[in-house]
């Protein structure tokens, strides 16, 4: 135990006494996190420039630009489509929007957005943000149009209802008139009148022939003629009743049509404008609590610090130890190789954990983010596990390579590989399946996933046991390798 303590003390003293190493090792991650926490502790995008061009701007295109100009975007009208597109290539603007000339809601042409897809980390964020803003404007317009439409339909509905009532009354009155006429015609007994009129005419002829009626016959004839005329009118009235019946049927049909229209209108269940404009409402909810860019990226940043610090600090201390004059004396003391490896590993772990503690203090002070007590133990375990893998990997590199330069190159190469084959730069889903399954064993991914789950979702160790055991496996294998390589490095030292 004394030996272990003395190895730790010696390593820490050597680090502290080497001012440049101490500065880089302790202040490097501190400055990094300080800058990152200050810069990314926001949910916004800043100073995103949108170039716009249209042959002829309309009030609608101006209004869309006005909408885009709010908040984080700056819209700038450019002279031509080519200038607009080329400005993306030269990074002067981030998005180019080409509006159809005299854009109105009746226009069938699209608004075209040009983006630089090579800027992977930005393009989708910007597009998403722009789409959302344009969509807001589009929804506003849809709402206005739909409101008009709905109001017109509602107006028509009420007019139909009103007209239907009148038609019903009309229909009833016509039926009543028809019935009255029918009854009058019936009571007049029109068919007998014709017969009776004929016999009266016959009687008048007979009277005229006998000459007994004198002048009366003339009056009588005139009355009979009038009577016959009236009788003819009554028979015309009967035919009018028939027409009236036809009209009543027509009125009934109109009424039925109007009722059908009204029923159709009434059968439309959704009449609220907002529901018609967006019948399916979507809401994206996060499974983690709302946070800033920094909150989401913090687990990754933490693993990046662990990766680079772990690899660099441990490889540097091993190279310094190897090139130290005292290296040989260490080998010939009655102290086991394993104790040296463990002592050096522990020293590096203490340094890395000190950095992590400093980082958490800085994060707490500057971004106000606090860590819940319930996750502290799990968090500490996973940080130690992840840091241990990188430290042992760094020690292995340190023992494998002869000089600081080659060791640093190896560290940068390995760190880059681990970083590229993680979710940090490109989603793993962009990799071919075979590579993706290999990348799944990347300690960077394992550590980042585990820390993300703990920090963002408060996950217990049981749920991240896969990551835990794979990292544990790495630690055991790397420890054995470091032990073997240190033994072999004796031979190199003598040669």
């Amino acid at each position, binding site marked *: 135990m*004394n030996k272990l303590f003395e190895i730790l003390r*010696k390593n820490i003293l*050597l680090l502290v006494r080497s001012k440049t190493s101490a500065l880089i090792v302790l202040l490097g991650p501190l400055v990094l996190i300080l800058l990152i926490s200050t810069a990314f502790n926001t949910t916004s995008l800043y100073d995103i420039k949108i170039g716009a061009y249209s042959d002829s701007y309309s009030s609608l295109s101006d209004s869309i630009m006005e909408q885009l100009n709010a908040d984080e975007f700056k819209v700038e009208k450019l002279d031509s489509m080519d200038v607009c597109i080329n400005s993306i290539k030269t990074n002067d603007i981030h998005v180019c929007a080409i509006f159809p000339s005299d854009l109105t809601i009746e226009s069938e042409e699209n608004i075209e957005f040009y983006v630089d897809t090579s800027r992977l980390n930005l393009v989708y964020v910007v597009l998403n943000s722009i789409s959302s803003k344009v969509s807001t404007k589009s929804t506003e317009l849809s709402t206005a149009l739909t409101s008009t439409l709905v109001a017109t339909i509602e107006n028509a509905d009420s007019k139909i209802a009103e007209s239907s009532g009148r038609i019903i009354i009309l229909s009833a009155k016509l039926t009543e008139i028809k019935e009255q006429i029918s009854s009058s015609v019936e009571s007049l007994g029109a068919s007998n009148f014709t017969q009776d009129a004929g016999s009266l005419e016959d009687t008048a002829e007979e009277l005229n022939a006998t000459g007994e009626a004198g002048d009366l016959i003339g009056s009588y004839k005139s009355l009979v003629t009038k009577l016959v005329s009236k009788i003819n009118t009554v028979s015309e009235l009967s035919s009018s009743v028939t027409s009236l019946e036809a009209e009543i049927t027509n009125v009934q049909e109109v009424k039925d049509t109007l009722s059908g229209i009204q029923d159709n209108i009434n059968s439309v269940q959704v009449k609220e404008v907002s529901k018609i404009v967006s019948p399916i409402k979507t809401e994206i909810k996060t499974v983690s609590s709302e946070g800033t860019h920094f909150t989401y990226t913090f687990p990754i940043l933490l693993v990046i610090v662990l990766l680079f610090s772990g690899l660099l600090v441990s490889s540097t201390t091993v190279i310094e130890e190897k090139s130290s004059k005292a290296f040989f*004396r260490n080998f*010939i003391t009655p102290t086991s190789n394993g104790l040296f490896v463990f002592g050096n590993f522990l020293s590096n772990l203490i340094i890395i954990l000190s950095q992590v503690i400093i980082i958490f203090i800085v994060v707490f002070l500057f971004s106000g983010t606090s860590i819940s007590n319930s996750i502290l133990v799990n968090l500490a375990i996973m940080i130690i596990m992840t840091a241990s893998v990188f430290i042992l990997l760094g020690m292995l590199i340190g023992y494998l390579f002869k000089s600081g330069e080659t060791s640093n190159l190896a560290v940068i190469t390995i760190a880059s590989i681990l970083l590229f084959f993680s979710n940090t730069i490109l989603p793993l889903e962009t990799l071919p399946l075979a590579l993706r399954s290999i990348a799944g064993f990347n300690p960077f991914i394992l550590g980042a996933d585990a820390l993300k789950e703990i920090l963002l979702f408060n996950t217990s160790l049981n749920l991240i046991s896969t990551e835990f055991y794979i990292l544990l496996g790495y630690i055991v294998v790397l420890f054995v390798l470091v032990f073997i390589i240190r033994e072999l490095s004796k031979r190199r030292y003598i040669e």
Partner: protein
Amino acid sequence: MNTPFIQFISITKIFSKKIVLDNVNLEIPYGEIFGIIGKSGSGKTTLLSILVGFIKPEKGKAFFQGQDLSRFTNNIRQQFGFTAQEGSFYPNLTVRENLEYFGTLYNIPYASLKEKIPETLKLVNLTEAENKVGRSLSSGMKKRLDIACAILHDPKVLILDEPTEDLDPLLRKEVLRLLRKINKEKNVTIIMTTHLLEEIESVCSRVAILDNRTIIESGTVNELKDKYSKNQEIILETYSGKYEWLIKILKPNKLVEKIFESDGRLIVYSPKAEGMLKFMLHEIEKKKEKVQDVDLNKPSLSEVFESLTSQDKK
């Protein structure tokens, strides 16, 4: 039959298919200062590394008090102290911190360390530099710190690889004095390598000559001198300091093994030194030169070494 204190039997060491040590046999007695001499790259450091268990030989065995060094246990390690050619301490730790660190690695309990450190610092005359960091020490102090780190745990054997390398003559003498003191006061067997033969001669009681990957001779310094040097050394100095004419006369003489000028003096090696000196004085008198100083010496170890290694080459 007494067990030799340290014994190498048929040691062969190969690095990258190159034989570095070939069938080395050597015995080192207890309590002496033992010198191993050899040219650069002759395998001196490799031999010492085998002795401290840092590397294992391909063939042969090394023994310490009858214990096989190939099974280099912590118990055996505890009996050895080692100083490397370039020093083996941490330059960014203080003298005390270095001693505390190596003392702990050599299983010295903390309570004993408190007593041992001042004692050792006093022995190597570094008491005043106790709190100075290693890198700020002078060359001589660094060497003494290195020796302090090697003797703190009271080893039975102190091994020094080129202990006076890169030191000026005064510091060399100081280090050699310290070694004699350690050998005497602590009764430590000292094994040292060097290619500076004068210091071996001044401090070592026994030497071994390592050449062509093997030990070609070993014994006391006088034994070797008597055995291998057929010449004596004549050192002559005249007031004029001009010797070209004399060299011209002496060079063809078969009794002159070697003749050269050095620091205004003429050095002549001859198996019949007395007769040769008479002849030289006669020639000087004839030339009417005046002799300022003349000396007749036994051969140096350097000459023995040269004689042995050149014989080996023939």
